């Protein structure tokens, strides 16, 4: 596990996700993807979540394939050199304009693949964030007010592998009883003990958390926090949508800023009721700022790319790659005091 503040990696990855979404062309997206993969390969090490990163890459491939298949099946086929002349199946009268299949053109295929590739890169950015920063540790950095939510997410994260393990154990045990391992009967026979087991585990965990002081009440309830938080989330969602998908206008930036401000206010309000402290909080220092800044730089380059004109697309892509992959350089981030965990040799395993 690397010692950086987990939120630094999330900031870097989110900025790259923005870069991938707004990138001016396939080359820039490729640059983002290459940068992400390079950094994960160099920095993720042996962290448990890092072992899931290849799964995100596979998911990315699946997304591209699905996008292309959808294009062939129902997509609107633009004119161009025909690659595969499939017959067009017209939809019924009530679904005017829906055509199935139709001639597949190189242009259409390329556009579909590029769109899929962009989406896949976005997903891989999220995968990189969770590979580089253990979600459990990232959630430790959340404000006290949403700490209960954070705990719920931590438990969900650890329960999924447990359920998979339990299912495997039960399937193995079924063999001991000589059960046929197929069919509805087998599903029922597996599901019952797995869910019983999951339920028992959750109850044991809940009892343990209760007995260890989780959710101790402090102070009276206030009515303001909920609505403010809900409003903040709506504003944040609108702003993020505007930046990622819509025309990147002033409106979305304002919505994003307003949402952030409202969310901060709500968290401060709610945080007053919660009296809890944090053990060895992760510190934000120079290396964290540099990691986040490299992501931001890549995003800015991707956003400004189109203004530089098509002939400089290659140069933009190179610059994006350089910015995105900068954290792979040890010197940038492995400064002394990079984080409390680096100081401990045991923690570096």
């Amino acid at each position: 596990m690397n010692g950086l503040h987990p939120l630094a990696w999330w900031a870097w990855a989110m900025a790259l996700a923005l870069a991938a979404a707004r990138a001016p062309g396939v080359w820039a997206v490729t640059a983002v993807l290459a940068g992400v993969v390079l950094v994960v390969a160099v920095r993720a090490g042996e962290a448990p979540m890092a072992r899931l990163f290849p799964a995100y890459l596979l998911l990315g491939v699946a997304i591209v394939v699905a996008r292309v298949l959808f294009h062939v099946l129902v997509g609107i086929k633009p004119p161009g050199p025909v690659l595969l002349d499939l017959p067009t199946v017209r939809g019924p009268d009530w679904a005017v304009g829906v055509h199935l299949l139709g001639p597949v053109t190189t242009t259409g295929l390329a556009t579909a693949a590029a769109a899929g590739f962009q989406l896949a890169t976005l997903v891989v950015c999220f995968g990189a964030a969770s590979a580089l920063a253990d979600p459990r540790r990232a959630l430790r950095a959340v404000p006290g007010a949403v700490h209960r939510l954070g705990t719920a997410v931590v438990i969900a994260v650890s329960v999924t592998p447990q359920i998979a393990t339990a299912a495997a154990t039960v399937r193995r045990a079924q063999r001991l009883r000589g059960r046929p391992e197929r069919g509805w009967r087998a599903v029922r026979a597996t599901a019952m003990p797995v869910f019983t087991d999951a339920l028992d585990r959750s109850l044991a965990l809940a009892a343990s958390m209760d007995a260890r002081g989780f959710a101790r009440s402090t102070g009276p309830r206030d009515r303001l926090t909920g609505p403010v938080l809900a409003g903040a989330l709506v504003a944040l969602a609108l702003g993020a949508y505007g930046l990622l998908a819509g025309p990147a206008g002033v409106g979305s930036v304002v919505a994003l800023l307003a949402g952030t401000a409202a969310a901060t206010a709500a968290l401060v309000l709610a945080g007053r009721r919660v009296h809890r402290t944090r053990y060895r909080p992760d510190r934000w220092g120079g290396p964290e700022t540099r990691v986040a800044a490299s992501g931001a730089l890549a995003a800015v380059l991707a956003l400004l790319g189109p203004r530089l004109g098509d002939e400089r697309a290659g140069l933009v892509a190179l610059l994006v790659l350089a910015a995105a992959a900068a954290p792979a350089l040890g010197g940038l981030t492995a400064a002394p005091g990079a984080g409390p965990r680096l100081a401990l040799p045991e923690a570096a395993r």
Partner: protein
Amino acid sequence: MTALLLDRVGVTYPGAATPTLRDVTLAVPEGELCLVVGPTGSGKSTLLRAACGLVPHFTGGTLTGRVVVAGRDTRDHLPRDLADVVGVVGQDPAAGFVTGTVEDELAYAMEQLGVPPATMRTRVEQVLDLLGLASVRGRALADLSGGEQQRVAIGSVLTAGPRVLLLDEPTSALDPAAAEEVLAALTRLVHDLGLTVVVAEHRLERVVQYADHVVVVRPDGTVVDGDPERMLADVAGAPPIVELGRWAGWVPLPLSVRDARRRAAGLRADLGHLAPPAPEDAPAVAATLLRARGVHVHHGSGPVGRPLWRTARPGAVVHAVRGVDLEVGAGEVVAVMGRNGAGKSSLLWALSGAGRRSAGAVAVAADAGGISPGAPDGTAAGEAVLDPAAVAPDEARRHVALVPHDPAALLFRERVADELADADADARPGAAAAVLAEPAALAVQLAARPRVLLLDEPTRGLDYPAKRRLTALLRRHAADGGAVVVSSHDVEFVAETADRVVVLAGGEVVADGPAARVLTASPTFAPQVARVLHPVPVLTVDALRRALGAAS
């Protein structure tokens, strides 16, 4: 000062016809190690959960009377409001872990209580030292051994600075050495910090010598309490050392091996006077029923038995069983022992044919005869053998059946009766009825009438009478011409049950021989009676009676 006070407490769970606890009046003074004993299902856990407020606030049900812990009444304090004065560790420590690493887990309760960061740092360091966890401080909880997990669980409630510690079967899943580790930590807490510790435990032989006070929960939910010597004089399930004391008429009863050994000088002289009791000869094996040759098991390339994300790591392959040879004959009960993670379960699963087997051969006799002993590999002509991994599961279980460590995985009907009816439908009717009193999983597996029976840690959570019934059942299975292989940490159970003991370490067989010889060879694996009577190789009180009876 009274750390824990129960005043005429009764507990009735919702939907239960009779109360689980009734009219319990109990005062545990500060700084005592209090041991709660009683038959399986008698309400020991309920007593502990009532003491920390989980009963009735978390579980539901009705609690009558009054429970006061460290001066706080559980009627007006929720469990979370008691977290700073009482710590509770459940039966499965891993099930209570909230975070991912040792240090975070130790700090969790303090974070909830709002302890200042500087205090948190000091307390975590102190607890790491106190429980000997400093070397694993940064490790992931899932990677720890059973004993380490148990100590982390104790530490995670200890950091909150409680005055009372409640532990439910803290050593039941541990091998003898790890259990010693945990108990040593507990006695340190009592003696060095003056903590009040309440422990519910079935394996009295491990704990009773440390107890200041014993509470016996009777099957009807009432309790009696008093000095360990007095309470154990007439409790039904007593550790072997107490049985030895009762049999020899020692008053007061010895509770530790040291006490008993001091008294047993005369007894040892008597026994030495006799011809040194020959280690019981290995029973003449009529026919080999199960033969394993060079069995290897590698884990890590599949999700079985470990967290999913741990399998994705290349190179994380565990070589759990390394070239084990084993022959088990008709009429034999073989115990497989070894510390946690020595490969016992992997070996049993490989023998059953249902688990992973990377290399080697397993042969099970397929007809009334057996495999001729000692045939190098393959078989003599005309013998019917089968490899349980190569035939259909349905066929395999008629010859070799495994009761896994977690028997609940085997059962999926809502009621035990449905399970047994289902098991009957699978095999010959009527077989299950005879063993209804035994754990349902064992009954289900016995219903197919396998000749070779494999059991993985069957004694977890069983009290002495239940263990005795299990011993009788296994001995009967062997006497009827079957073979039993049982893995266990429970030295006393093995001493009562097994003819032969195989000790595994790091996946290899390090000892294989008659139980009397293997169990007396090392002090860790020696049962109490053998430790008292050393160098006379007698393992159990029954064997002692027989030896003296034969002599006179």
